[in-house]
């Protein structure tokens, strides 16, 4: 490491405020040439805002950025790219209908001729890059044909193609299998050895500790400390700023398995379905949930979890197989029948699927009961009942909003989830299907949501919890089902869950190699 030379990129006293929120406050850190530098922090700690400042999407309210010791001012992403800073976003910025080469050449100054572009020259350059950095990819393939891991490679080459010396990677492993993550780690380290710098944004302690040379911890928008630490527990307490053990306390209630006599409320038998592209998405899934039980479904996104929950909610039709709720068979593809049978569903896409953003909290809370009395007095609805029930639910579920007539799009993520849970829990459901319940929520809201789920199970609701966050699944579930390529590979009791083994199962045991 050449500590003597100026840092590849550095931020000094950067502050960025949004109306009502301070996203970054007095953040200072530097990235050396040839190092992998992690930005560690919880959701909402200001990591993404900081990376957006480094890549020219935002300008800081105060503070400044230096590149190789020179003060730099970015007016747009283009300026940041010109200064050699490139970003690989968590949600890929790729155009599915374009080829790999087209996506990489997009907006780049590296087009040999300004007017007509020379595809073969572009492709050559891509092949050269992919060979020297060991990132195999076919430049002529269309993006939609590629796996998630391959798409990420395209994103990385896209940044390298622009001669970036600093790569900022936002939660790069969130979408990858454990095996793919390991390959990525090797790639990043080899890039660092080649004189590039990598800024690695993550909240996963383990990978930060193993990949990064140095770690800057962000908490509540402030840079707490830059350390060379690779002890997970020490990093954890820096990150959360409190006793880590508190997170694990909630698990005790679920470590004991339920009595075998507890009735089964959800019975999925040999369910098969195809996904949006017409490929097999569910390949014979069988799974039971008993009353008062939380069954966690772990797995990397895209292994059939979405299709499974959509079928349970009636938003998608299955090809074959059966679903029984409390003994009664669920109609295929009906959204009303699950509601009638007491299946509640909290979708991952809360605003897009769960709520009508422009409608009020009260109206959203009435979404599933507007059809029946007391809310309805056909053909009319009673606004006064809707409002009164909403006020009561807001109280009970601690929804913080000016009033029940506030449109839901004005609410914070935590309150949005509370509105959804309030609605879904209020109809005395037998089964609750919930997908990624705490994604994007702040720490306080995560704790509230977890408590609500535990309370619901306590009161006898059978819960199917689908989450990519393995820690969450481990913390809440009685049993854990691991999904891989449309199948449930195994269901294990929480008490004898082996994290190592679940991780391997999520990657399809050891068959998959990137």
């Amino acid at each position, binding site marked *: 490491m050449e500590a003597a030379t100026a840092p590849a990129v550095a931020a000094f006293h950067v502050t960025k405020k949004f109306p009502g929120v301070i996203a970054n406050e007095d953040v200072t850190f530097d990235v050396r040439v040839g190092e992998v530098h992690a930005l560690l922090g919880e959701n909402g700690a200001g990591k*993404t805002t900081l990376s*957006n400042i480094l890549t020219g*999407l*935002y300008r800081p309210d105060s503070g400044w950025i230096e590149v190789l010791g020179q003060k730099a001012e970015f007016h*747009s*992403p*283009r300026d940041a*790219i010109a200064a050699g800073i490139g*970003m690989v*976003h968590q949600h890929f*910025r*790729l*155009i599915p*209908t*374009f080829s790999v080469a*087209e996506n990489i*050449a*997009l*907006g*780049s100054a590296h*087009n040999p001729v*300004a*007017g*007509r*572009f020379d595809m073969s020259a572009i492709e050559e350059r891509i092949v050269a890059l992919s060979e020297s950095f060991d990132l195999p990819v076919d430049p002529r393939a269309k993006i939609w044909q590629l796996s998630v891991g391959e798409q990420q490679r395209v994103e990385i080459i*896209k940044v390298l193609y622009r001669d970036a010396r600093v790569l900022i990677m936002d939660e790069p492993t969130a979408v990858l299998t454990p095996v793919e993550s390991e390959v990525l780690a090797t790639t990043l380290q080899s890039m660092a050895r080649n004189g590039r710098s990598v800024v690695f944004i993550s909240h996963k302690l383990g990978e930060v500790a193993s990949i990064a040379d140095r770690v800057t911890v962000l908490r509540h928008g402030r840079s707490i400390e830059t350390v060379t630490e690779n002890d997970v527990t020490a990093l954890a307490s820096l990150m959360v700023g409190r006793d880590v053990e508190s997170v694990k306390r909630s698990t005790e209630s679920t470590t004991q398995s339920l009595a075998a006599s507890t009735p089964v409320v959800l019975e999925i038998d040999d369910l098969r379905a195809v996904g949006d592209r017409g490929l097999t998405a569910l390949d014979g899934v069988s799974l039971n949930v008993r009353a008062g039980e939380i069954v966690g479904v772990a797995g990397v996104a895209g292994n059939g979890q979405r299709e499974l929950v959509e079928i349970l909610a009636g938003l998608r039709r299955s090809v074959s197989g059966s679903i029984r709720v409390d003994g009664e068979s669920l109609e295929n593809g009906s959204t009303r029948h699950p509601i009638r049978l007491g299946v509640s569903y909290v979708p991952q896409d809360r605003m897009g699927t769960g709520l009508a953003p422009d409608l009020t909290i009260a109206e959203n809370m009435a979404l599933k009961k507007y059809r029946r009395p007391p809310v309805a007095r056909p053909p009319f609805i009673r606004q006064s009942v809707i409002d009164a029930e909403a006020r009561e639910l807001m109280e009970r579920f601690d929804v913080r909003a000016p009033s029940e007539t506030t449109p839901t799009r004005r609410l914070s993520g935590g309150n949005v989830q509370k509105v959804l849970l309030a609605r879904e829990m209020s109809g005395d459901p037998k089964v609750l299907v919930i997908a990624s319940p705490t994604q994007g929520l702040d720490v306080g809201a995560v704790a509230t949501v977890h408590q609500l789920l535990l309370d619901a199970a306590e009161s006898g609701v059978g819960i199917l919890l689908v989450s990519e966050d393995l820690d969450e699944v481990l913390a809440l579930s009685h049993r854990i089902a691991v999904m891989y390529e449309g199948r449930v590979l195994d269901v294990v009791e929480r008490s004898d869950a082996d994290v190592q083994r679940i991780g391997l199962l999520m990657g399809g045991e050891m068959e998959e190699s990137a």
Partner: protein
Amino acid sequence: MSINDNIFVVIMASAIFYGTPLVFASLGEVLAERSGVLNLGVEGMMLLGAVAAAWVSTNVGGPAFVVLPLAILAAMVAAALGAAIHAFLTITLRVNQIISGLALTIFAGAAGLSSYLAGIWHLGQSPVAHQFLRLDVFGLADAPVVGPILFHQTLLTYISWIFVLGASFYLFKTRMGLHLRAVGESPQTADSVGIPVVRYRYAHVIIGGSFAGIAGACFSLMIVPTWVDGMTAGQGWIALALVIFGFWRPDLMLVGAYLFGALSSLSLTLQARGFHISTAFLAALPYVMTIVVLVIASNASSRRQLGAPAALGKPYEREER
């Protein structure tokens, strides 16, 4: 009877003649739509172009080879100004593109600004002084079959062919075309690699508008050729349908334009030849055809993504998370 009086030759020749404004208008629209902006103001912009061209042709002195290019230029500018209003409202103010486009057509259209301007300029009382006449290219106008169809058209038709080739090349073979398509597919992605989304959208909506102006000039300088209120008679809407019909590809749109041109001329030609067929049926045919094609295209496109820009109709706000 010469082979060139054969009904298919006559209809093909007039299909190209009547299809020419559709080619220009749909090319203009495809540029806007490829950038992600739907512009329903085509009809209004065409009428603005038509009235501006009619004014220049009537009032500017000089030989035709000077006046006609000026008239086309005026048509382009007039229509582009109309498009600029739409661009400002939809791109900068992020107003609903459908309503804004309709507003443009109402503002500029048959009972709006074009008619107002024609009124105060006293247009429409006589044919325009200069018009685009049919040419005899390479002296082949009388050649069997191909003569009337390919070599006996006006200059505007030949220009439209160059435009189709140019637009195809631009969209699919140049860097700017690639960037344009990226803006229409995913403005977020385009922005993240430094393509100026807003500038691209403005430029293509406005240039697209100027094409609609040429389409309007086709009516007042070539087809009619004088000013009549509302003279484009709904062809601007057909142009919108053609973009979908041609899957956002200039070459296919050209085919579609001539198909619709053929249908428009079919009823006249058949009647002139004494066929007993209801004119009403034939008059309705292009519109019904459009609906049928749309149904087929929309169904197929939902399955196979035939080229509809993914971000079409959506205003772009930088997602700042």
